[in-house]
Every structure is written in structure tokens, then in C-alpha cells.
């Protein structure tokens, strides 16, 4: 947010002292911030990175990383990927549809304000609360379950699926959709009605408009937002921890098992290696998201 003139002006002001004795007070002003970030953000990151290559006795090893190849860990990565992709896709599509329904309305209307405010609120929905909301709704004695049972529909005919991965995916969509509305709405706002009129005046149909005009313009934004939702689901821990009380079905649960383990089987090295793997994956996804966002912002506004 530096305005173009700001650095230049301050630079010239600071130049006389630069190279000679710079007043130490100027630098003192940022010491608390850097000290804090160093201790509570960079140090833990370093602990994770270093700890991934060290065994219990402090020797350098690659064992922690090769241990990721064990079938049960690979399985949790696959599970994490599946529920993240599924909830990201469902969330992105449903969220985009909802955003479109809102964006086609009055831009200053009450509906829009309510939906965006509500999305901001729902996207902040804590994991624990969310689990209890769904237990109250779709648990074995949940409101909707009982309501449907009274009408002869048993949603758990093939077993109770709420406490499994499919239930987790459903719960994730509850926070994915609002997040999608928030991040995708600006792209929809960038679409000008004139483009549709132009398509029509050239003889194009609705299909042509979506296929050749709006679709290609929105595609990078949509893809980027889907990646964001993927990272969102992939990092989530609380929801799964409260819903699925045993076993390390997904990576975050695997990490917490490995490092708290009540049976004395804690493997801190492996936990750090998994944490490192998660950070790498999320960083890659978020970088792609940022690149796609940048592409979108070229024609937005």
C-alpha cells in the first residue's frame, strides 16, 4: 500500500544519515514486531523444518520423511485429498451459483447486504460448533433425521455416515460455500452487462455468452477460489477432531495422534515431517491461488 511518492520522499529525508550513523531509534521501533514474529512464527517453523530431519536422539536422518510412505499415512493423505477436493468442488459450484443469484440483484439492495454479511459470519463458523450443529440436525436423533424418520425415510439405512468421511465432507461444505461467496463475488461484479449486450448484438445466444465470454473470463477466478477452498479444507482440524474421535483418518488427525499419543507411541519426528508436508502443500496451493487472483485482477475493476 505504499503510495508511489512515499518511499522516495522518506528516502531522501533519511539519506544523509544512511551509511554513516543512522539514528538507532528509527530501527528500535520495529524491534518488538520482529522479535515477536521471530519467536512465535519463524522459530516454530524452523523447529518443524529442522525436526523433520532429526531422530529421537538428535541425529540427522531422512527416516521421518521416508516414514511418510507407510501405507497408513499415505491413506490419510489420500483421505485428506479426497474430502478436500470434494468439499472444495461442491462448495465452489454451490457458492458460485449463490454468488451469481445475489450478484444479479440490486448491488445496493438489502438481500446482497444480508447474504454477504451472513457469509462473513458463516465462514468464521468454528469447527466445534459446526459439529454440534450437524449432530443436532443429522445425528441419529437429530432434528432432520427424526423428521424424515416419522415420514418413513431412514437416511441412515446403510449405516450412520455422519461420523465418517462423507459426513465430514458435508460439514465442510457448510463453511466452504460462504467463503466461496465472499471470494468469488468480486469477480462476478467485474462482469459488465455491456458484454452480454455486445454478444447479443452480434447474434450470440445465452450459451455463446457463457461459453465464449463470461466463462473464459471467470474461469481463472473460479479455479483460484476452488484452490483456496481446497487449502481451507485441507488445513481444517477441529471439525474432524470433534466429529471423528478415533484413528488418524486424515492428515491433521494423524499429526495430533503422533504427537500427543496417549499410549506412549508419540513420534515427534514423524509429526513434524507431516506438518512440513502439509505446509508445503498449502503453500503451493496458496501460491497458485495468488497467481490466479492476480490474473483475475487484471480485468477486474
Amino acid at each position, binding site marked *: 500500500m505504499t503510495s508511489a511518492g512515499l518511499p522516495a520522499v522518506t528516502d531522501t529525508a533519511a539519506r544523509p544519515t544512511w551509511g554513516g550513523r543512522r539514528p538507532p531509534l528509527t530501527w528500535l521501533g520495529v524491534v518488538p514486531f520482529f522479535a515477536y514474529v521471530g519467536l512465535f512464527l519463524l522459530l516454530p517453523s524452523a523447529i518443524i523444518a529442522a525436526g523433520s530431519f532429526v531422530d529421537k536422539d538428535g541425529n540427522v536422518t531422512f527416516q521421518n520423511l521416508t516414514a511418510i510412505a507407510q501405507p497408513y499415512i499415505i491413506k490419510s493423505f489420500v483421505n485428506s485429498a479426497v474430502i478436500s477436493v470434494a468439499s472444495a468442488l461442491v462448495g465452489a459450484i454451490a457458492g458460485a451459483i449463490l454468488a451469481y*443469484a445475489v450478484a444479479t440483484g440490486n448491488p445496493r439492495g438489502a438481500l446482497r447486504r444480508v447474504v454477504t454479511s451472513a457469509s462473513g459470519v458463516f465462514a468464521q463458523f468454528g469447527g466445534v460448533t459446526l459439529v454440534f450443529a450437524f449432530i*443436532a440436525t443429522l445425528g441419529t436423533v437429530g432434528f432432520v433425521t427424526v423428521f424424515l424418520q416419522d415420514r418413513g425415510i431412514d437416511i441412515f439405512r446403510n449405516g450412520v455416515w455422519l461420523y465418517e468421511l462423507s459426513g465430514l465432507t458435508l460439514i465442510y461444505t457448510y463453511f466452504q460455500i460462504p467463503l466461496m461467496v465472499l471470494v468469488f463475488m468480486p469477480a462476478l461484479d467485474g462482469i459488465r452487462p455491456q458484454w452480454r449486450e455486445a454478444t447479443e448484438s452480434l447474434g450470440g445466444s445465452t450459451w455463446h455468452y457463457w461459453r465464449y465470454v463470461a466463462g473464459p473470463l471467470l474461469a481463472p477466478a473460479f479455479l483460484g477460489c476452488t484452490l483456496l477452498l481446497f487449502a481451507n479444507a485441507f488445513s481444517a482440524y477441529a471439525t474432524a477432531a470433534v466429529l471423528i474421535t478415533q484413528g488418524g483418518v486424515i492428515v491433521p488427525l494423524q499429526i495430533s495422534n503422533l504427537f500427543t499419543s496417549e499410549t506412549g507411541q508419540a513420534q515427534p519426528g514423524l509429526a513434524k515431517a507431516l506438518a512440513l508436508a502439509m505446509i508445503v502443500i498449502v503453500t503451493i496451493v496458496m501460491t497458485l491461488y495468488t497467481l490466479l487472483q492476480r490474473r483475475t485482477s487484471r480485468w477486474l475493476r
Partner: protein
Amino acid sequence: MNRSRRLKLQIFRVIVLLVMGAFFLVPMGAMFEFSTRGNSATAPRTLEAWANIIKTPDLVDAIIASLELAAITSLAMLLLLLPTMVWVRLRLPRLNRIVEFLCLLPITIPAIALVVGLVEISRWIRINISDSILMLFLFYLVLVLPYSYRALDAGLAAIDIKTLSEAARSLGASWGIVILRVIVPNMSSAILNASVLAVAVVLGEYTFANLLAYVNLQVAIAYVGLTSATTSIAAALASLLFAFALLMILSFVGRPRRQRGVISAGKTLAPVQLVPAPPRTR
């Protein structure tokens, strides 16, 4: 737009809004329904579960702890971030990008991964400084960093801090006065924004507290859920409504400023908390 297409669009919009409305509101209603159930299927409605919230000492302690943590965290966030951001903009603009990068960095580190690196630091703090749950604020600060940074950044971008501070300085104000009496009053809505976001994040936090073995509100709710589903659902709904109220206040407090015509028509009216970052409470 021709008439039949407009009609089709209207029908589409109504259906979408109804379906989504149901998907989002039914679980809330179900929580309320569930929390007022009696002991058996035929028992009359009761508010016993709600009364149980205050009768469960663990829960009360956790509520107090979480509220205190929320207040401490947002205050610490302002004390740490605001002077740094102002200072960097005015005196060390070359550090601006680094500060921004560091503040947004937590977005790419999942909480469950970060906590693995924090556990040793937490152990050290517990042994050498204090065993109190309130020390969690040191870790929560990392979680709120990206949100607060974006909110404060938006506030600072909207005012000309250079001119304001030069004017104040030339009139003899110290740097403390510049920040407290000149800059802060000019960006009060951004500060409110950043604080409310911090409060919302802290009240919903589970991962750090659980893995660092502290009992905050969310951990207590999950724990109570093992013995009494109705009580924990009542507590969950209560904490949720509290957070909702806070965020709703935020989205309406932020509004009058915009209505003064600073932002042109058609520009999004989204609440200012619009942060394209995965929330940290899951």
C-alpha cells in the same frame, strides 16, 4: 434483457436462495430444537440444558478464560501491529513488504502444523513464565495476524498518515501522541474491525488450545459433549450467537462511512471483514 429471460432469472434466484437459506438455517434451528429437548421423547420442552451451561463449572471457567483471552489478544494485537505499521509506513518504507509478508505468512501454515512447532515453546513458557491459560494469547496473536493486518492496512490506506503525522509533529507532538491522538481516531472503524475479527478468531479457537493442553471455551464444549449432548449444543449455540452478534455489529458499524459516498455506486458493499484467507477456527 427480454421478459422471459428476466422471469427465468428471477425463478432461478428464488430457488437458489430458498435452497441455500434452508441449508444454512436448518442446522441453526435444529440446534435450538435439540437444546430444548426434555429427557425423553414425550417430555415437555425445557430450558434445562441452557441452565446447565452456568451450572457446569468447567464450562464457566472456560467461558471466562476465552473472553479474557479474546480481550488480551486483541489489545496485544493492536499494541504490536499498529505502531509497527505506522512506523514502517512513515520511517522505514523499505520494510513495508517484509512486514506484510510476515503478517500474511500464517495463511500458508495450517494451525495444526504450526502447533507442532509451538509445543516446545509452550512447554518452555509453562515452566519458566506462567502456567496460566492466558499465556495462549502469545500464540493466538499469530493466528489473528493476517486478518488484523489486512483490516488495519485498509484503514491506513484510507487516510494520509504522512501529512497527518507531519502536521502533528510540526506542532510539537511526540510519536506516541501522533499515533494515539491523531492516527487512531482517524481509523477507528478499521481498528474496531481488526479487534472484532481477533475476538471472533479467539472465541472459536480449538486447535492450539487442545493440542497445547489448555481448556478454552471450544475445548470445554467438546468435552461436555461427551457426557451431555444437549448442554454442549446449547453452549455451542450460545457462543455462536455471541460471535454472530459481534460480527453483525461490525458489518453494520462499518457502513455509515461508506454511505458518505467515498466509494462509488456499484462497488461491493461486502462487510470489511472480507478476508480471502481460510479462517483459523477449524
